């Protein structure tokens, strides 16, 4: 009898122990404090760096490529030189890029916080002028996120910024800006005029290649399902502007409907370019995964018997631009499809002085944002 009792007690004890083990691993303890703690960390970073009453926030999607960090660092330094009265900050909108940049060992740790955290911190330390410069190429989907972050700041979504300070950002009844200003620097091809200006700058950098063969630019583009602000048209306008300089220029994308590498090639054939050299360069602020893999990578879905297979959207998948044009009989100068040294074209736009200068012009021309009556759709 005693043994049965013992067994019963042991059985209950074990079930209880199992139950505790099952329930003790709770991870939901820090929901509120984590966000505040993180914001405080950003605020401390800003307080440590604040030298002026004016700030420029450069906002990019982000990257994990060392080459991209170098380009961002260079841009930051050039901005600091060009805008001496301003504190310059770099921001990524990609969480994973922020995570990786801040975590490495034996390498410089960089804090590229998201725009919403930087802006909130700017508000806490009460910068009087804030210019947010979009590092995007077109005013597309990523740009809309930059605008949304500014609207959230303007509307004091966290509700903890000083009311008097925030009031100074408001427009008066006659529509004049307030004492404090929040400005937005537009993307590289915000207007059609910008596209024409960019064409001239690009021609300066790439004319020797366009003279040897086809010079292709690979932009990102909005997908067809959500062509934010109808911004894809800028790629077409850029190609038109470039072709007035040299018909060997073409501008394609990885995501814009009817402007994939396949359609670029169709336009090349129409223009009589069925053979010869093909050079490619990314039309993106930095050279990351798209530039290295989709443009200059080795992915190749060529089938010896059936050739390339075009999908419903008119694109050949799993094939880089390099391999695509190579199989279609074009010459691919190996030197151009690298990211370092003389003649290397796998470089982001921010690696070129004259393109950085165009971004800086946009910063100088930055406009005050009326976030109460926004021209942009609500988040």
């Amino acid at each position, binding site marked *: 009898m005693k043994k049965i009792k013992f067994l019963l007690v042991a059985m209950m004890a*074990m079930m209880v122990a199992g139950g505790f083990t099952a329930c003790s691993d709770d991870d939901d303890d820090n929901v509120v404090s984590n966000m505040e703690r993180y914001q405080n960390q950003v605020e401390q970073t800003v307080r440590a760096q604040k030298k002026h009453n004016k700030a420029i926030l450069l906002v990019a999607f982000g990257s994990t490529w060392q080459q991209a960090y170098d380009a961002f660092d260079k841009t930051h330094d050039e901005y600091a030189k060009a805008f001496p009265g301003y504190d310059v900050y770099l921001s990524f909108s990609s969480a994973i890029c922020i995570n990786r940049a*801040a975590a490495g060992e034996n390498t410089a740790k960089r804090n590229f916080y998201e725009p919403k955290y930087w802006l909130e911190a700017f508000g806490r330390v009460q910068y009087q002028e804030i210019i947010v410069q979009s590092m995007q190429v077109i005013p597309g989907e990523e740009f809309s996120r930059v605008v949304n972050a500014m609207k959230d700041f303007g509307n004091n979504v966290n509700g903890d910024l000083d009311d008097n300070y925030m009031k100074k950002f408001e427009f008066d009844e006659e529509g004049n800006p307030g004492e404090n200003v929040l400005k937005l620097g537009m993307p590289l091809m915000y207007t059609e005029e910008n596209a024409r200006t960019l064409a001239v700058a690009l021609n300066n950098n790439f004319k020797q290649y366009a003279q040897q063969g086809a010079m292709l630019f690979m932009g990102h583009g909005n997908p067809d399902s959500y062509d934010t602000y109808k911004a894809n048209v800028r790629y077409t306008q850029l190609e038109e502007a470039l072709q007035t300089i040299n018909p060997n220029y073409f501008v394609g994308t990885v995501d814009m409907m009817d402007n994939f590498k396949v359609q670029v090639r169709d336009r090349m054939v129409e223009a009589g370019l069925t053979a010869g050299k093909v050079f490619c360069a990314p039309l993106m602020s930095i050279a*990351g*995964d798209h530039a290295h893999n989709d443009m200059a990578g*080795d992915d190749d879905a060529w089938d010896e018997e059936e050739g390339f297979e075009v999908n419903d959207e008119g694109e050949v998948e799993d094939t880089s631009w390099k391999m695509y044009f190579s199989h279609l009989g074009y010459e691919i100068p190996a030197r151009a499809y690298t990211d370092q040294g003389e003649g290397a074209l796998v470089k982001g736009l921010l690696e070129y002085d004259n393109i950085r200068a165009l971004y800086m012009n946009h910063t100088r021309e930055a406009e005050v944002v009326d976030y109460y009556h926004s021209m942009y759709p609500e988040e």
Partner: protein
Amino acid sequence: MRQTINRFVAGLVVATMSLPLMAQNDLKLDTLQQVVITGTGTQHLLSDVPVHTEVISEKTLKQFGASSVEELLGGLSASFAFNEGDMGSQMQMNGLGNNYILILVDGRRLHGDVGGENDLSLIDPQNIDHIEIVKGAASALYGSDAIAGVINIITKKHDEGIGLENATRVGSYGDIRQHNTLAFATGLLRSQTNFQLQHSDGWQNTATEYTPSSATPVTDSRSKTVNRHTNWQVRQLFTLDLRPDIEMYLGGSIYGKGIYRPKGKYPKYDVKTYDLTYRNASAETGGKWTTKRGDIVTLDIDWARHAYYHSFTSTTLAEGFDNQGRLILDYPYFAGQRTLQSDQQRTMAHLKAVVALPYGQRLTAGAEWRHDYLKAPTSLTSKTVTDNTQALYLQDEWNKGLLNLTAGLRLNHNDGFGWKLTPKLSAMISMGDFRLRTSWSQGFKTPTLKELNYRYIREMNSIIMYLGNPDLKAQASNYYSLSGEWTYRGLNVTATLYYNKVSDMITLVTVPHDEAPAEYRQQYGEMLGKVRRYQNMEDARTCGIDLSLKYTHGPLSAGLSYSYLDTDAHVYDADHDRLSRVVIDGSAYHKATWYASWQHRFSKAYQFGTGIYGRMSSKRYYQIDGDGRHYQTWRLTTTHDIGRSRHVSYRIEAGIDNIFNYADRTPHGLHLGTTTPGRTVYATLQIKFQKGKKIKLNNTFNSNQTKDYEED
């Protein structure tokens, strides 16, 4: 009142407790006299088992000296392939992955998976008595998952007075293994407590990352081929012989595992911001009642939990819930915090009876109930999901002269896919030294809760998003096999031809980026390399031949195991309205293992054993990220049983694995043929203390055919 309680307790105990797989046998003189259970769910001698069963015996296990279940299965059977990785060992059996292999520990399903892979570290290699492997579909008996086959790992059971055992193993790359057992057995009650610890520092086969040809090469990466990891487990089992005909048991376990990842200087390649943490627990109870006639009724109830966490090592923005409770993809976590990725819990109840019928028949009947629960706050839109399965099954074994026929049928009902009937038919003809076995069986696999509902991001060189698919159908298979076995003196030769056709096979298929939810597309942007979704493939088949040759002559034994595999799989390509052929990831045409071992007792106080083992695999094929290289490795082991006082015995095991120092140095980011680090050495010291009388267990195997219907 007291009497009422007693009756209640006794009733409860009778109804719920027994020991399903405590079968020890006294006839383990050599392998063929091993008692096996897995093929039919009833006990048979290996030499007479109607369903072809492979056994890795205790003797083989001891001589091989494996540090893990992966090592011993991969090293001793040609049908297995492994690739150790972050997310558990990717196991394959005759071309089909872990998803299709049912792994049992003492007859109970191993629980929990990450990416479809079981965590085999839950099994202490030092605590294995023997392993039974039954290839091919076995769903009639076991239900879901038994498509490629069943691996039943039978653990050691102590049945003598007081037993204490300690085994400490050290090896290259910080390999440390601890195994401890404390056991006692009185007339009625037996208790066994096990503790195991496994640790490895991990290793790096190459410092080169796979980089596109356009990029600057990375040759000083800190990414490891196998990451540093530590796991520990405590198990407790009580067994009570309430009456000579009633045995009950109560047990449970807790387990923890950590996988630690390096933080290098290349954010794109070797910087990780979180480690992986696992927490498991289980509880089981049951009973076994043997009638005077020798019929057996068992009831087993068990609960198991497998929880998986990300443990942050630096500030990380990841999926979480903001102040308003909304899911956001950039919720900040700090070093030292952890967040639950998934918590899988399973509760099962299984009632089974094995009854002798007239005319040499033996009937097995059972009912099974299973409840699955998945909690994954950031990866499920509903935060939790559940699934229920009920099943009834029947099996009849009929012995008539040289012929043994086994027929089984299982009726399943599942919340998701409804009713399903799964048959099985097998026959054996025994002619002297020759056995001919043939079988047709069906298998099925219920889509897992993760395959149906889970969505998650995995960070490798690029980001891969995985999407569950609520429209998945159950996978079903038809398995046909023909096997011949010839035993002559010390020689045993078997050849098995098989054909396994899986329809509606679930696999990950790359889908266009716009299939990913918009918030993920925006958050991951260009880093989102691929979006992959679970999908039913049109069909897949594996076919091949398994050969096995074993020879024993006195102290010498040798063996060869060879597997030829051919696979063919199709997936429906909706874009082009046609079937396209895909490879089954990780499959190889040729695999083999071989060994020779010798044992000699030099004196009363010293016995020596040595073995040489080899394994090879031809190229392993993959859909993406390159193929795995062919390889061949060799292993040399020695064992030394030193002295033996009345109660204490000592044993040293030492050996060299991968003698010729082969390592696959393919850059990180591409598939490897094998993850072996090259040559490694190991040494184990085992001390055993045993005092007391051997308890006569009532489930000892009895070879009398008319009573040969006990089950575990």
